[in-house]
């Protein structure tokens, strides 16, 4: 074991795309958690599983079909939810199970599970290509720029829809924008932790950060720091001990959550 590891190209790519995804997931995830939409990321991830299967069957690069299927299904389910007044958790369940169902049927048609499917289910951060890394960076910068530009509109419509409307903010458009960004983020992040653990990156660092009782920007900063720590440490630990990176990353962020709970229970978090 040595720092030689840091000279490997695959490790550079894993760290760069891992850190970008950590930032992206915790920022987009904070909006979802605050909207009581924590499992939405999970639902989109399952829909993307259907998309991956479509790509494999059609012989198209599966990530592209995953993007299309995930974003479309996220927007459609949001429309259906509003139109027919279905609750958030029920709409998540519908999206989640239909994504898996489509995936299973198509995989059956195309002759069973392959290695590709497993890497989408469980992630393969150490196998990220140069092209994938560039795509991850591009999307991360793009989404963070959109959030920075529309910050007031996004936070206000998350805080209180009615008051945001009265202040002239196009609340419905903001809702779709968040869902759209969540769709892109999920599919982009699948390479890191896979379909099955994606919502951990969206939810756990944010749940921890909210407990520190700070304002929005500091909360986002804490969440991003926790997320980056889990991803970077997770990549190294999994490499040295030859265990799965996705599971390690998620367990580390659960460790941080447990630590935060411990500090809070001990009364060490001041109210201010």
């Amino acid at each position, binding site marked *: 074991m040595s720092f030689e590891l840091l000279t490997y190209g695959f490790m550079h790519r894993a760290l760069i795309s891992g850190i970008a995804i950590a930032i992206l997931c915790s920022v987009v995830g904070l909006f979802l958690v605050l909207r009581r939409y924590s499992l939405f990321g999970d639902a989109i991830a399952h829909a993307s599983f259907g998309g991956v299967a479509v790509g494999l069957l059609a012989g198209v690069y599966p990530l592209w079909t995953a993007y299309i299927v995930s974003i479309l299904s996220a927007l459609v389910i949001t429309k259906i939810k509003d139109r027919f007044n279905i609750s958030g958790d029920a709409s998540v369940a519908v999206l989640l199970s239909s994504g898996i169902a489509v995936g299973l049927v198509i995989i059956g048609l195309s002759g069973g599970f392959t290695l590709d499917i497993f890497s989408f289910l469980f992630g393969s951060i150490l196998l990220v290509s140069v092209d994938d890394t560039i795509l991850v960076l591009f999307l991360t910068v793009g989404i963070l720029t959109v959030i920075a530009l529309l910050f007031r509109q996004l*936070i206000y419509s998350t*805080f209180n829809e*009615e008051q945001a*409307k*009265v*202040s*002239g903010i196009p609340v419905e458009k903001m809702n779709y924008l968040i869902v759209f960004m969540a769709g892109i983020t999920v599919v982009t992040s699948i390479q890191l932790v896979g379909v099955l653990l994606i919502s951990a990156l969206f939810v756990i660092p944010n749940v921890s950060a909210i407990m520190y*009782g700070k*304002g929005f920007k500091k909360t986002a900063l804490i969440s991003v720091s926790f997320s980056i720590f889990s991803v970077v440490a997770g990549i190294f630990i999994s490499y040295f001990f030859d265990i799965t990176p996705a599971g390690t990353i998620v367990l580390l962020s659960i460790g941080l959550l447990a630590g935060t709970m411990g500090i809070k229970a001990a009364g060490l978090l001041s*109210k201010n």
Partner: protein
Amino acid sequence: MKAVEIKNLTVKYPDVKALDNISFEVNEGDFLGIIGPNGAGKSTLFASMLGLHNDYEGTIKFFGKDIKESKKYLKQIGYVPQKPIFEKNFPVTVKDVVRMGLQNKSDADRIDEILQQLWIHELGDRRIGELSGGQQQRVFIAKALVHKPKLMILDEPVTGIDQQSIELFYSILRELNSKQNITIIWSSHDLDAVNQLANHVACLNRTLFFHGESEDFFSNDDLVKQYSEASMQEHMHHH
């Protein structure tokens, strides 16, 4: 100039007419108190005026312009809801909340100014969910005022708040109206407070029973009796 002109406003819900042919005007600088029992249509009236409920007959004009033509009028309005609903652990400080009301980032100095004015500058970095009801209400007034609106709409904003905060709130309203010449439309079930603060009164119960100067209303014993009973009942209902 007229701040608000409402003409033949009717709102029908599937099983009931919530508002029936309401017409009234509010001049700039007026302080209008709207009173009426529960279910009188006050919230429906406000929702229609604020563009939250667009399915109505009749016309609503703010500063001479029909609100169906443009939503720009909302920038000149500050709205304080009855009880703002938000997640208790929502990670925003008092300053974050007030900043939401700011339409132009360059006015950031306004935040400190308005917090001072409402006696909550010491709470600026506290989370909104940690404050008492009265403090939270002042934060929401600050948010409604930070962009310097010409008109404020307040929906029974003292429900569930302690007496001391209520009195402070009333003195703030009085100052906004008299010193800063902000037009105020305020629904309340506190007839004494309406008598002290408002210069115009509107009595609503699906239709408009009275609209005029405050003195004319309070010198009409029958009306006062009828509405104080109605508002008493409502008051009891709230507690």
